[in-house]
């Protein structure tokens, strides 16, 4: 039962709808791998300690900080970055459209993280009113302080999603957290291993 410790690890995962196999050093974070190996620089390295949220990406539909995740921990997962949000013809995701319509940014540095967090926030069912959005979006810092516009954009996109069900499910989502438990279920398991 002795474990074999490797310094180079082969990882297969799905990235923005495409299967990718890569060999990584275990200390490589998902964020560094995306930016430096895959050339996907949408997710930003703001604080590199989980404080700012600008590296937020979806792992199996759940939002996570790319800087607090190792690439090796993403084996067999589905990763979605801001580059994977647009539709097949390049049309903006409804949440991207809502951000543009509501002027929900100024410098734009935090926007990729805000967008990914917003997509998940809506899919989780946490975009029901102003206060709830502010609480569930608090992991994304905006130093230009576009918070009122971001909140408005998230609420508008959520309303649009309610009007047209199924158009905004977080890519790769199996089930939103909190909706996994069947009524009366005595035991549930997270979709994350």
């Amino acid at each position, binding site marked *: *039962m*002795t*474990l*074999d*410790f*490797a*310094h180079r*690890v082969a990882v297969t995962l799905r990235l923005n709808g495409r299967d990718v196999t890569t060999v990584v*050093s*275990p*200390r490589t*974070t998902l964020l560094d791998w995306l930016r430096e190996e895959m050339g996907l620089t949408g997710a930003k390295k703001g604080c*590199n*300690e*989980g404080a700012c*949220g600008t590296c*937020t990406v979806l*792992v199996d539909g*759940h*939002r*996570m*900080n790319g*800087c*607090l*995740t*190792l690439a*090796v*921990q993403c084996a067999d997962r589905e990763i979605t970055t801001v580059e994977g949000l647009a539709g097949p013809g390049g049309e903006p995701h409804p949440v991207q459209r809502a951000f543009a319509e509501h002027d929900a940014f100024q410098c734009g540095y935090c926007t990729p993280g805000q967008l990914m*967090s917003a997509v*998940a*926030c809506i899919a*989780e069912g*946490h975009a029901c009113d102003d206060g709830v959005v*502010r*609480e*569930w*979006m*608090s*992991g*994304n810092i905006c130093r230009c302080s576009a918070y009122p516009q971001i909140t408005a954009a998230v609420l508008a996109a959520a309303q649009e999603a309610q009007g047209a069900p199924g158009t905004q499910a977080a890519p790769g989502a199996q089930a939103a*957290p*909190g909706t996994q*438990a069947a009524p009366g*279920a*005595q*035991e*549930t*398991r*997270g979709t*994350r*291993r």
Partner: protein
Amino acid sequence: MRDFGYARAGTAASAAAALADPGASAIAGGTELLNWFRLGIAAADRVVDIGGLDELHGIALEGSVLEGGELRIGALATLNEVGEHPLVTRLAGALASACLQAASAQVRNRATIGGNVLQRTRCPYFRAEEPVPWPCNKRHPGSGCAALAGRHERQAVFGWTGDCVAVQPSDPAVALAVLDARAEVLGPAGTRTIPMREFHLTQQEAAVGGEPMRETRLGPGELIIGYRLPASADGQAYIKVRERASYEYAIVSAAATVRPAEGPGGSRIAAARVALGSVAQRPWRLPAAEAELPGTALTREALTPVIERAMADAAPLPQNGFKVTMARNAAVRALLRAAELTAGGHL
């Protein structure tokens, strides 16, 4: 971050065997470990990924609520999974609330309930990058405590020593302590349980044990595999006081459970439990208050002196006397809120 070897554990037993090596670290969510590696707080030659261990997942009720049933929470449940699980919100509301008031939505999707209680202090002198430019006995034993002579308004008011004045910042740990949860631990000698109200050590307790920098009762190579909590129908609440409304560590916090009794003069307490957070290096239960509270009216005026008496042994540092008052008020609010939640009919 230094290079390390990586392996995925297939069973908890193989993980425990690998973790017996002092150069090995377990990784689950990694939200704390990766920052330790970056700052030089910890370094590991080998990292054991326990994230794939099925036996460490799952939230279930064993037995019935009314007949000594227990809630079993696997160590790998994320803070969001625990905080939003219907069994936890119904039977351990203080824990659900503490989980959802911790960190941010995306951190809570990674951070696990097992790892959360092993997070270390947020004292800024401790959280410095190597080479640490000031004394910190946790980082470099024998170097001293910069916080004691420097800024310590966020640090301990109970249980500290001249060697270290840090507090344990976990929110869920406070709820687990007030709910009489037990941690299930797997180690080289097999499994054992540790009551969560004793899991962490104050600096004074650690000094008495001859290991002044020890922070928990977890032994070398031991791994938290889950928790067991008595299912409770009592009202519960977790109050977190902080400088921002969200995504911020507590200045102080309080968790409480209340079983109210209706009397001729209004609602009184039949039984209650209280714990304070971020006032010591462990969640701080108030046994003197718990003994005195039965029969006390559920009003701010009646509760405040009871909590005050139970906190009479507080020993604030020069800059943090305000935490004693703030913690007292948080405890009173937690008791009142817990009573309200009972009245709302939790079951």
